């Protein structure tokens, strides 16, 4: 009876340990995938006109990517996930700035036309 309970406790212990390990692995994979996505997006933005009006945001996103990588090295995966998610939300800000830029140029064009 005692041996059975010991085996049972051992089994529970190993299952809980392995599940923790697996969930941590999943988190790492997710954070790494997100960082690669963010890096790709950032690369595209850097090659576009956005460099002229969203340099500040680009620098911030780069800072967050570095921070995420550092946190992954320190095995703080949850925090790394939060940091990279904050970086992702900056892309909306960049697209908002691009639409603002577009509407400014359009407005200037029509103003010039009216002055002709």
């Amino acid at each position, binding site marked *: 009876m005692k041996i059975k309970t010991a085996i049972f406790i051992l089994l529970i212990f190993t299952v809980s340990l392995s599940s923790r390990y697996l969930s941590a692995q999943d988190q790492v994979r997710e954070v790494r995938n997100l960082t690669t996505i963010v890096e790709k997006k950032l690369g595209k933005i850097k090659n576009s006109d956005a460099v002229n009006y969203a340099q500040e945001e680009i620098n911030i996103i780069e*800072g*967050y990517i570095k*921070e995420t990588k550092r946190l992954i090295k320190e095995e703080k995966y*949850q*925090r790394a996930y*939060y*940091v990279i*998610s*904050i970086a992702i*939300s*900056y892309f*909306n*800000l960049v697209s*908002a*700035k691009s*639409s*603002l830029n*577009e*509407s*400014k140029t*359009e*407005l200037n064009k*029509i*103003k010039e*036309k*009216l002055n002709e």
Partner: protein
Amino acid sequence: MNKLIKYRLISILSLMLIFISTGNLLAWDEDSCKKIIEKADNAISDIDNNFEIKEFLPYDYYSEAVINIRMSRWELDNEEYELAFFYASTALIKIETARIYAEARKLERDRLIYEKNYYRKKKKEETAEPVKTPTDMNEIIEANLLKKGNIYRIEIIDRNLFEKRRLSLSKRGLKSMEKIIRVLEKYSNSKLRIVGHTSFTDYRKFSERKSKRLKKFFVANNINGDRITAIGAGNRIVMDTAVGFRRIDRIELIITGIE
């Protein structure tokens, strides 16, 4: 010797600066959470009191930011500082995004007003030119197309075009589309641009689906698909109505190349 000390001092100072700047990213404690929540709150009240851009706010971003602030407060009460910091900082970014979009929309409204004045001015100048007789333009008049320079356009509200909760054309919509087909058949070199618009949310995919549905209809009625482009503009472009500029679920048909 003095130079060495100076260099060391500068390097230590710069290292300290880097440490402080990275420390901001790592500041996930209670105080920093409270500060950032306060900042987000102030940003929201600033937007609320800014009556110039308030009417142009994209409410999807705005409401998400408000919800995020509530969530961060909730997490702060539960002493989950990491989550609270995350929610508060995303709220701040969303508020900023909403503010910039609102400014862009305001400029877009200004552009529309200027454009209106420009075409009025041009129309006055063009009155001396010979105007086409109504018999030549019969199809265009029947289709209710409005001329703006070399462009003919019409905006049709969704409820006049589609059936309720469906993207199939209603009887009324069919009639008006048949008139457009007649115009396209008469002017074989003309091109059609279909732009879908939405009202409350910036739902681009849905607006695109609407316009593509119409394109299908035109192609099925023997209009060459190469002549037609279908795009979705979401709710970014406002409509000039009798009661001012409004965002309305509608379809805009723009025909070019009619001579």
